[in-house]
């Protein structure tokens, strides 16, 4: 008895069509991950019975069921893992301290063996993390100079994780 009233191919087509309608670039990158295929080991029976069969590598395309899982992995990378990277980085940076130079040691020279004396501040407090968008050597400068890494709520990330689990369950064709 089938659990679903649709085939894996229909499910994959629907997912890619929906994705393409929202963001063609994203759909193309997911399609590329699918189209990369997979390596399998193939066995060629030996012509001489005394010899072992020859095993060789062959790159084959994913089945529609496998392609769906590859697509969900790609979606998970952006919708679940990326927010988790930012939250995890924010956690670890918050536990570090900011170093404020004291300049108490007037004799301290940059480039010397001694580390610049600093007082530690804001340990345990959130730090603002930014990624440079306009690099030093870039000639044309338009838009924002930097990108601020913003935390996402654990609840939102968990909702997306659960949603992907639901989709994996809805596209499980094993046992049919």
């Amino acid at each position, binding site marked *: 008895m089938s659990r679903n009233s649709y085939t894996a191919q229909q499910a994959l087509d629907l997912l890619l069509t929906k994705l393409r309608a929202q*963001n063609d670039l*994203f759909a193309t990158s997911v399609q590329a*991950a699918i189209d990369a295929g997979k390596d399998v080991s193939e066995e060629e029976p030996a012509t001489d019975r005394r010899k072992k069969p020859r095993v060789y590598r062959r790159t084959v395309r994913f089945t529609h069921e496998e392609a769906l899982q590859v697509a969900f992995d790609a979606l998970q990378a952006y919708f679940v893992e990326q927010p988790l990277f930012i939250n995890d980085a924010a956690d670890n940076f918050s536990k570090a301290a900011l170093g404020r130079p004291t300049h108490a040691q007037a004799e301290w020279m940059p*480039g010397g063996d001694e580390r610049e004396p600093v007082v530690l501040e804001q340990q345990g407090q959130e730090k603002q993390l*930014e990624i440079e968008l306009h690099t030093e050597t870039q000639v044309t400068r338009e838009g924002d100079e930097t990108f601020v890494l913003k935390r996402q709520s654990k609840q939102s990330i968990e909702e997306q994780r659960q949603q992907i689990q639901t*989709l994996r369950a809805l596209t499980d064709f094993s046992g049919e």
Partner: protein
Amino acid sequence: MATLQDLENAIDALLNHPLGVSQYQLVQRVEEKAYEAYVFGLCLRAVRELGVTPILRGNTGIPTPFVFRGAPGQIHSRGRNYGYAEFTLNGQDFEIQAGVEFKGTSGMTHELDVCIMRGPDARACRNPQSLDDPASASLICGWECKFYAGNLDKGLGRAFVGLIDDMGSNLRLSGMCSNSSHPQLRKYFQPDRRPYPHFRLTPLETSNEDIFVNQIKGELKKMTGA
């Protein structure tokens, strides 16, 4: 029995969520760098677990905000207040840097996405009287960081092995970090002195995070006798 409408509703709920396609549009241009920030954070955790407080510094002042380079750059660059972290373990100073270029043994420069280097060498390269790229001998640990939504590209692994080969013999720990994986690359990294494959290094796989952090702790303890 699930219908095509059930599936469509589930897909819509995923893609239209605030962390759906709009999240992709937001982070797509910084996806690699966000992953580097995550790996940098794991280095901070390793230092902290050694009982030391890592100190965040900036090239031109207090790092508020802490800025990651958007492209490979020089350690002494003052174009922006790029962030780094410093720490002292058993009397030895170190720095954690991101996106900094090093001089390889061949003289060619190479970028390390995230690295730990000797503190005095980093300070010497920032000294206005002796601005320079750090020598490969100042590098202790170096990691290539790759965020991939699909399978990793094999070429990245080959390129990183070539880079590590040019970084001399002081480098104690190297690895390729990725949220993704590649079965052939895992085999390619097996020989001695090749980078460690930190594949599926993501908060979804905490055991892999522990391996990464423990490697750093072990190597720094061994090096400093801590």
